[in-house]
Structures are given as C-alpha cells and as structure tokens.
C-alpha cells in the first residue's frame, strides 16, 4: 500500500488545524488582539511623550511578540493529547516529526503571521522611525517562526503534565532569549541608521537551525509525553 507523500501529509495537517481554528473565530483573533493591546497599553500606562515611546518601541514590539506566541503555544498540542487525536497521529504511518512541524506551521500562520503583518501599524503608533519598519518586519518574520518552534518543543515536553502551563514559560523564556536579543538589536540598529544585516543573518541562521532540529526534538518529546 502506498502511503501518501510527506508534502501531502504536511498540507493535510495544516489544513485541518486551520479549519479548526476558523471554526472558533475568537481563538484566532486572540493573540492578535493581545498584541495590539500590549502595544496600545504602553502608551496609556506611561506618560506618552514621543521621545520616550520611540526609545522603548523596539523593546515593546519584541516583548509583545514573544509573549503573544508564548501565550498561544500553551494550547498548541494540549487538546489533541486530551482528546486522543495525538495518539492516532503517533500511530499514523507519517513521521510524527513532520506532523508536529505542520501543526507548528499552522500555529504560526494563525499567530505569528498576523503579528508580522500588523507590526507596521503598531510601529506607527509607537512613533518608531519609518526607516526601522521594514527591518523590524523582516526580523519579526524570521523570529516569530523560531518562537513558535521553541514553543512547540516545550509544549510537547510539558503536555503530559496537566497543569504544565506555568512551567512552560519557565522553559521557553531562557531558550527564546537570544531570539529576542537579536531581534531587538536589529530594530535598534535600524533606528539609529546603522547596518542591521548582521542581526538579520543571525536570525535567519537560527531559524534554519530551529527548523532542522526542533521537529525531531518535538517528536521525541511527544513520544515521551504519550508514553
């Protein structure tokens, strides 16, 4: 019997997860709403002088991005494990690493991508200089998938533990820190008119690394959690 190819299996999984998310419209909007809220709250919580906002803009954008994806990764695999569909996935002839990568990709499409797309608006609200916007978008486009992958690995590790939620942030943040530092650095450099291509390259390298290693880590972690 010919088992369907990897590409097809990947597409199937992404399609199913997207469909599930669109059934729950609210779920989809949440990370985005959250991101907008964080970035609008800052000016509200502070005395909103343009200079101050500009100074903190990169920090706010980046921390908000990290937290938004952290927030969502909590539920990345939880329901599938609880309702037993993850068990069936682990028993399908398709490689588990591929299927989990597909789930993470779907997750990124729904949480990370919208965030990249609305970042210019947020940047405008925080008086981020125009010239820093394209760099920030590019850096976010590279960094958010890394964050999703990190979230995926840690979610797979903790999903067997019913109340793993808080533990998850403890596990994710140390690993996510370099991403945050490089990302904020790219924005920072661009703001001051300097060359930020180095930080971008670094992020790209990290993304490649994460994409090639994390699926296997996720699969291994998931098999342990299902044991």
């Amino acid at each position: 019997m010919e088992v369907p190819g990897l590409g097809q299996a990947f597409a199937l999984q992404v399609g199913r997860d997207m469909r599930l998310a669109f059934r729950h419209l609210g779920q989809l909007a949440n990370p985005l709403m959250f991101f907008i809220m964080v970035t609008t709250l800052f000016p509200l919580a502070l005395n909103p002088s343009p200079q101050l906002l500009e100074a903190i803009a990169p920090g706010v954008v980046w921390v908000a991005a990290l937290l938004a994806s952290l927030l969502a990764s909590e539920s990345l695999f939880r329901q599938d494990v609880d309702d037993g569909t993850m068990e069936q996935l682990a028993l399908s002839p398709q490689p588990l690493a591929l299927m989990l990568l597909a789930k993470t990709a779907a997750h990124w499409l729904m949480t990370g991508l919208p965030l990249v797309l609305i970042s210019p608006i947020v940047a405008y609200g925080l008086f981020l200089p125009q010239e820093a916007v394209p760099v920030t978008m590019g850096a976010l486009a590279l960094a958010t998938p890394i964050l999703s992958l990190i979230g995926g690995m840690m979610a797979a590790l903790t999903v067997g533990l019913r109340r793993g939620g808080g533990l998850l942030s403890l596990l994710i943040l140390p690993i996510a820190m370099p991403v945050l530092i490089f990302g904020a650095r790219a924005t920072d450099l661009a703001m001051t008119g300097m060359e930020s291509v180095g930080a971008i390259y670094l992020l790209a390298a990290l993304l490649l690394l994460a994409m090639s290693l994390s699926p296997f880590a996720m699969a291994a972690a998931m098999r342990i959690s299902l044991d």
Partner: protein
Amino acid sequence: MWKFIHKFGSPPHFYRLSVVLTPWFGWAAAILITAGTLGGLYLAPPDYQQGEGFRIIYVHVPSASMSMFVYVNMALAAAVGLIWRIKLAHAVAAAAAPIGASFTFLALATGSIWAKPMWGTWWVWDARLTSELVLLFLYFGYMALRAAIDDENRADRASALLAIIGLINIPIIKYSVEWWNTLHQPATISKMGKPAMDGDMLTWLLLNIAGFMCFFIAVLLISARAEVIRRARDQKWLKQALGVT
C-alpha cells in the same frame, strides 16, 4: 566505547567505583581550595586598581566557570542516557543539576557583591549578567520539569531532552562579552600571548578552579550514588554491598 559505557553504566560497578573515588576527590578539593583561597587572600599582591576588593575573584571566577562546565556535563550525561538508554547517566544528570544551580547562584551572588563597589550598584542589565541569570533559570526549568513528572522513566527522558536543547545557550553566555560591549570583564585569563593577569594572582586562581572542579566531582559522585541507591533500593547487589540482608 560501547563496552566501556555499558560497564561503567552498570549501577553495581558505579557504586563500587564511587565508593573508592569519592575520598580522593574530596581530599584533593579540600587541599586545593584551602591553598588557593589562602594564597589568594594573603599571598597574592593587591590589584593596583581595585585594591583588596578584587580578592573575591577567587570565588567568583571559579564558580562562574563551573556553572557552565556543570551544565555541559549534565547535558552530555543526559544525552548518553537518552541515546543508549543508560539509567545511571540519567541519575548523574539529575544529581548534577542542583550542584550546577548552586554554582550559578554563587557566581551571581559574588558578582553582585563585587559589582556594588565596582559599578556602584548590585545589578545592571548587562549581557553577561543577564545570561548568567538565564542559566539559573535553565537549571530551575530542568529541575522543575523533573519534579513535575511522577514517572521516573519519563522524567529522565523528558528532562534529558530539555537539557540538550538548553545547550544552545551556553555559547551565548560564554561569548556574550565579546559579542556585545558590556560593563563586564572580558576574558583575562585565557588570553593568548600576553596574559592580562599577574602571574601570582593567576596561580592561586587556577588552584581554586581545580579545587572547585574536584569538589564538583566529589559531590556529584556522592549524590549520584544516593540516586543509584534510591533507584535500586530493592535489588540484591545493593543489599550485599550495604551489608544488609
């Protein structure tokens, strides 16, 4: 290699070995640390810039470098356990975590104490300091994950995976000083060519580092042995070894 791993990985063998080795490392640690510390405190010349305050270096630098060294060892042990399914390696990794966390804490504490006179504050948000703090979080995460899983087998495998993933942070901590310009001291000991540190100071520091290393090995042997005993509590060889029937 395979044979060696399996021989060493057998709990009875390890048990005997650790009983023999522990005193050696224990005494070596005691002697080296005493010598290094006394030498550092009394024999080394005061720093021309920092006066006597610099002497905390004899605790700070060894504990800071051990904090990373222990992590790497823990991750390696975890990897061995995961790949070859050797329980002893997991026991070693589990035993290493609290020791490493203690070294990290010590590095942070001595650094803070040193920072007060040097930089005028207990804490700054500097890359090396922050990444050392993150290392502490990594240790905490590892220990918390272990504690959160009640099945020992699963706890071993899951936390091993986490330790390996966490390895990526070690180079970042190590080289953060070079990648970012920070307040913290760049490498002074290991510089090739002209050593940036006085020879006398260096000797005592190296003695202390060696002492910390022996101390780590001795404590690791003891706590790994405790872990082995706990896991093998109703096995025959252990009862024989302990002389209980």
